[in-house]
């Protein structure tokens, strides 16, 4: 809806927000905000139950022990809590193929790292806040790394290029190293 307006360049969904790129010579933030608020009051179409992905994880991430200690849990409890739910894909974004998955168990809720790592390896399984995700490529990142998977999430020559789509469901399970 927003993308069709001549004064809007791009509209990008967040987990609980939308970021709108607009032409400041054709509209004002106030006028656009009113349009967005009207659109947000409309009832969204019901989401279809998404596809279910089963993702094997080796739970040996460099932050697993520190995460367990901060939360007052054992590493095994962290693993059990992480793989128990069937997560929902809230949003695809951040990195090519990254998906925000959640909600993560309340017992695992942690803020992001105070300083992001300069390099997180591809395939790292991570948690932050009430969300979890898998780094699709090597990149800087501020989430806590608890494991890794060999499943590819990003296929640059496919359209769409991402394994996960918003609304899909994801189940992690522990796999041998």
């Amino acid at each position, binding site marked *: 809806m927003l993308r069709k307006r001549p004064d809007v*360049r791009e509209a*990008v969904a967040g987990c609980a927000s939308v970021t709108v790129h607009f032409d400041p010579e054709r509209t004002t933030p106030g006028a656009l905000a009113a349009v967005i608020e009207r659109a947000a009051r409309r009832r969204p179409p019901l989401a279809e139950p998404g596809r279910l992905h089963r993702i094997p994880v080796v739970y040996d991430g460099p932050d697993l022990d520190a995460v367990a200690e901060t939360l007052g849990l054992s590493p095994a409890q962290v693993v059990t809590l992480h793989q128990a739910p069937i997560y929902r894909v809230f949003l695809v*974004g951040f990195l090519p*193929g990254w998906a925000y998955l959640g909600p993560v168990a309340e017992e695992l809720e942690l803020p992001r790292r105070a300083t*992001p790592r300069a390099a997180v390896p591809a395939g790292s399984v991570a948690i932050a806040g009430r969300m979890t995700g898998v780094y699709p490529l090597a990149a800087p990142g501020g989430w806590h790394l608890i494991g890794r998977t060999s499943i590819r999430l990003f296929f*640059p020559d496919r359209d769409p290029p991402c394994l996960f789509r918003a609304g899909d469901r994801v189940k992690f399970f522990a796999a041998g190293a």
Partner: protein
Amino acid sequence: MTAALEVLEPGVLTTVQDLGRPHAVAAGVPPGGAMDRFAHSAANLLVGNDPSAATLECTVVGPRLVATAASLVALTGADLAPTVNGDAIDLWSAIVLAEGDELRFGGRRTGARCYVALAGGVAGDRWLGSRSTYLRAGRGGVEGRALVAGDAIVAAGEPARAADPGRTLAPRLRPRYSGQLHAIRGPHAGRLGSEALAALFGAPFTVTPASDRMAYRLAGPPLDAPGGDVVSFAVVMGAVQLPPGGEPILLMADHQTAGGYPVVATVVSASLPSAAQLAPGDRLTFIDTTFEAAVSMRAAQRAALDSLAG
């Protein structure tokens, strides 16, 4: 004439870039494209291309290129001391290279990124609607990578307008690059106390070595970081994130598409070319700017480009 160059030496990071792939952001793919959109667009207009054509983005240590056919080119952005057959050439001007002419760069004088436009636009792989090189995924431009010796750079087509060697951007319209970056307050600036706000807008920061086309990590006075993460939201080039560690991160062209650190300021589009011309070790200061002032600076920059579009 079909413009063409061959790479003799690649420089440290020379990539094919255009105006990026804004519509791929929904798949989590960075928008990418030229870091300095003004210099990129001006270089294209000088050789008769549309601003959306691809150019070469040369970083700090430029390449050594030889013309394999007579070629109309233009260099803009950073002054990396360019020469043709040993003679200094002007930036911000269209220049004819004869077959065999050698274009090289003597070293960094000012800025960090010099753009080389070729009449007809630089050819390259298209990926998700753009020829821009995205190194992390290895797509776009020349096989998704930086140039290497032996690469052939050819024109993608004919220029949109007739060649006009000698076309130049009036000196008064050329950017005055500086580390003074105008910025509006970000969506989470309200979390900062008055002391942190004063430091953010006024204190000098240094671009650290952990800086690239994705983002610049900045070192400066520790800012009292606002409490807690935010729900991840779509971020933009120019956004200044403040992680709890207190060292700000300035997002650039290959930025991640969403983030959960608070965004305390956003560099205005008219100052992004100056930001693009900073290299590790350079200093910058954020200047507290109103939205209205940002819009008028943007209009002035567009008028400068319009002067070349005729």
